[in-house]
């Protein structure tokens, strides 16, 4: 063999050997080390992937890791992938590489300028919303009108007010941090579609939008309204939302609620990151010690984390699911249902003893805050039933990029009926409590109960059914709860021939009584039929 041939053979052999060694190295290292001694080789931490890593499969039927023989290959491969040596480091490196070098999404996170990230897809399609990729159908728009007008009508029937506020998204308010390629393709947002829909609605003032304030604070004053590496608003952004909410409350309750907002409480970021002060800030890559996947939010709340639970119920996933706070002195009572969107930032107002103080203005007394809750009809009834009094205002919060799903999900029959009742009134129909028209037609009905209670042996906590009748005909049924005030809406209902000219009556089950019951109806305008 010539010298050149030998050299080439040597190059080939070295290449081959190096590759075989490289491919087999992770397993050699794995076998040579134990998990307990080398945490490097533990399965990828569940907290960063939001799932449990796959376990070594077992063929024993009584094992929690039991896997059928036919699926053993797949299970083995899944376990192997999850416990692959250096997987954590490789994934961390991948994330940094995809963001900083490739400038491309890693999963659902789309990089922006600097450390800024934006979310796409799944349940947080903020970039799709920015691009105008979600369009409300006529039915969606109708549902939105029904939701807001129906809730407003229901609240009025029980003697309360109703407010809803879609919280802005990062893409809609910090768009200058996006890359020009995306920024240039701004479409019609869900917010603008909802605003158009509500333009002529009497409930338009009950829907509060905060986008303009966010944009102005961001663009003109450079304030951090959102975290750059997370999709939640910063403590300052949340304060802006409460500021506007407070102003609306001052309009609704003049003389009782102050129009001046709670002062901005601004703990220095370094104190928050060091755990010395309450707050919520994003850590920079240089600050990372235990977050290999990149930038993470640091939430600091010195003192006890557990908040007092006003209504312990349902999931125990979050210790701060329900938070109740009270101010000294008299004030209006607020029931607020909101999602997790502002939960981190609310840490900024956490008092040393551990309870959460919502940054409402003076004049707001008790606040019942329900994280991960929505104002379904059952929830509204339950609030009055369990509190024993009617709150002054019900507040509902939705994130802007979910507005296309919101109305569909929370629009119940009672709210729809309440909206129809409100529209019948707006169309000029008289509110009547006497006999139904003898010529028939279609009606919407409102029933308000005072001091609805269980008289003997009935379980007040249970829902029960109320039946609407006329001349012996059952027109409809609805469920409700006991309480100082409850309201039900029925219809639109066609008046059967047997019921024409008869009085409407409401029947309650035995053992349930109401101090006063007021049944009124409105004829539906022809356009609604």
């Amino acid at each position, binding site marked *: 063999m010539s010298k050149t041939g030998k050299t080439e053979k040597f190059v080939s*052999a070295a290449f081959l050997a190096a590759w075989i060694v490289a491919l087999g190295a992770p397993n050699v290292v794995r076998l040579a080390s134990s998990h307990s001694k080398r945490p490097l080789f533990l399965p990828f931490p569940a907290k960063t992937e939001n799932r449990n890593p796959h376990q070594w499969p077992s063929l024993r039927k009584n094992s929690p890791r039991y896997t059928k023989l036919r699926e053993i290959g797949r299970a083995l491969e899944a376990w192997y992938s999850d416990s*692959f040596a250096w997987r954590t480091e490789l994934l961390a490196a991948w994330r940094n590489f995809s963001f900083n070098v490739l400038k491309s999404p890693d999963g659902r996170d789309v990089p922006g300028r600097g450390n800024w990230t934006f979310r796409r897809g799944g349940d947080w399609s903020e970039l799709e919303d920015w691009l105008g990729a979600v369009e409300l159908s006529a039915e969606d728009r109708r549902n939105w009108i029904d939701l807001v007008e129906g809730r407003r009508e229901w609240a009025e029937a029980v003697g309360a007010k109703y407010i809803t506020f879609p919280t802005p998204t990062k893409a809609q308010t910090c768009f200058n941090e996006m890359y020009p390629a995306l920024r240039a*393709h701004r479409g019609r947002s869900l917010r603008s579609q909802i605003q158009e829909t509500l333009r002529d609605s009497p409930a338009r003032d009950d829907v509060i939008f905060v986008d303009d304030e966010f944009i102005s604070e961001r663009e003109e004053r450079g304030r951090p309204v959102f975290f750059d590496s997370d999709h939640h608003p910063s403590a300052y952004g949340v304060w802006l939302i409460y500021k506007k909410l407070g102003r609306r409350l001052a309009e609704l309750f003049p003389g009782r609620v102050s129009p001046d907002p709670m002062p901005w409480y601004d703990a220095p970021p370094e104190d928050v990151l060091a755990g010395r002060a309450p707050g919520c800030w994003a850590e920079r890559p240089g600050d990372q010690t235990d977050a290999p996947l990149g930038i993470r939010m640091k939430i600091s709340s010195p003192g006890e984390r557990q908040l007092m639970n006003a209504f312990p119920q349902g999931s125990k996933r979050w210790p701060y699911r329900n938070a109740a706070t009270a101010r000294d002195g008299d004030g209006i009572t607020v029931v607020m249902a909101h999602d997790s969107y502002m939960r981190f930032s609310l840490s900024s107002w956490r008092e040393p003893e551990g309870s959460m103080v919502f940054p409402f203005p003076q004049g707001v007394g008790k606040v019942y805050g329900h994280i991960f809750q929505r104002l379904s009809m059952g929830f509204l009834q339950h609030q009055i039933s369990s509190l024993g009094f009617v709150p002054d205002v019900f507040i509902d919060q939705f994130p802007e990029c979910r507005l296309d799903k919101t109305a569909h999900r929370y629009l119940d029959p009672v709210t729809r009926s309440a909206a129809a009742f409100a529209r019948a009134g707006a169309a000029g129909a008289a509110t009547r409590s006497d006999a139904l028209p003898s010529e028939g037609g279609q009606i919407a009905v409102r029933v308000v109960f005072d001091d609805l209670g269980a008289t003997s042996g009935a379980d007040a906590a249970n829902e029960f059914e109320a039946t609407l009748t006329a001349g012996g005909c059952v027109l409809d049924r609805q469920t409700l709860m006991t309480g100082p005030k409850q309201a039900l809406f029925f219809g639109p209902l066609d008046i059967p021939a047997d019921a024409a000219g008869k009085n409407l009556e409401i029947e309650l089950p035995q053992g349930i009584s109401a101090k006063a019951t007021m049944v009124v109806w409105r004829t539906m305008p022809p356009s609604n039929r």
Partner: protein
Amino acid sequence: MTFGSLFFLTAFLPPVLIVHAALQGGGSRRRTAAANAWLLACSLAAIFLSDLPGLKWFVGCAAWTDLATRCVSAALRRGRQRTASAALALAVTADMALLCAFKWLSSSSAGAGADAASAIAIPLGLSFWTFRAVSLVWDVRRGVHPPPPTPLHTLGFMALFPVYVSGPVVRWSEIGGAFERRPFDVDLAASGMRRLAIGLAKKALLADNLAPFADAVWALADQGLGVPCGMAALAVPAYSLRLYFDFSGYSDMAIGMGRMLGFRIPENFLWPYAARSVREFWRRWHVSLSSWFRDYLYIPLGGSRRGAARACINGLVVFTLCGVWHGNGLMFALWGFWHGLLICVERLVAPSPSQRAARREPTAGAAESLVSIALSRVWLLAAVAFGWLLFRSATPATAFSMIRSLVGLAQPSAESRALWLECTPVFTAAFAAGAVLCFPVAPALVRLARRVLPGWAVLLAKNAAATALACAALFFMVSGTRQSFLYFQF
């Protein structure tokens, strides 16, 4: 277990290769037999881990294929042509019945509204190993080669893990000799490793990064939603490139692993998008499959020996069946028919040099104008891309929706605005790189390097490039963005 999985590459492959190389040694009969036994055991283990329910069908098919080859061979030795043909017919019928039954049962169980768990799964690689079985028996019947020496050789040939799942549809005549004597060749093994790296890179760096955009466009078309003309026009070549790099990447990996095990598996893709006619395209695209259809269907049907009309009909039948082989939806058949039709048109409009010679027509001059070369390439790419549009669309409605978007007749939907999210820098880079690398640029560069550099330096550069590509591919793979090979569904 796929070629691109971490488990396969780092846990399965290294011990298989090391032990195999140790057993191979100088390639004596005894050592080769030991290497064959090891390879068979590893192949069966791979099938066991990948598709246990399909294993029994595979072993059954291998058993009757081996029996058929021996019956055919025995009949031929005794001069009983009819018996040999009958044995062949029986084996082919059994193979095709198995293939058709599973494809039909699978589609009917999936289409009956049943959930995924109750749908009948097609055994992994069924389309490929039934075709290998047919070619084995048929070639024995034609006298191309004797049957494999033992049933274990037949099983080893059919179970060979590099080609088990997605081909190439390799024949015994091409690799049978290596089952007899297979010495360890370090150059061959190193070239195999390089090829494996190239295949991985094609899959992970190009195909997987081209997929999201094309998939997003087709997802809208599936819903009947309009897409801007430019986006649709980008999606079709993006899918064409994705399909090429996906499948040729798989073939590269199969060829590479074959070489590392001492098998010289024939090339399956010969720069198909550099072809200048659809006929030439099929001589370059999935060569093992197109040559299978040519040898075992087109030629037995009469090929082009019975006039142009019969050749066209034969071509239409063969290509439609080729489409059906890929899947039993109407669109696959339409895709196959489209290619059959294109070849008929080409045959009539622009006969090949051999056809011209047969008709005693003057053949084209050696110096063709650049215009004609450019036109023929544009024609080929447009025709093939339209075929891929049919191939990718699940229903005629989807294809129609895509065509409407392509010609600008569809009103772009609001949802289509989200496509901007898929136009990432990675997609753009993959598209640009793919558009260049689907033509034979890399071999030209190697040729150039050989002129100016010594052999060992070229080899070193090739090894370095392969290493870099494989590292990048593995990096992408670990990220979890890796997608299944497209051809696994066929």
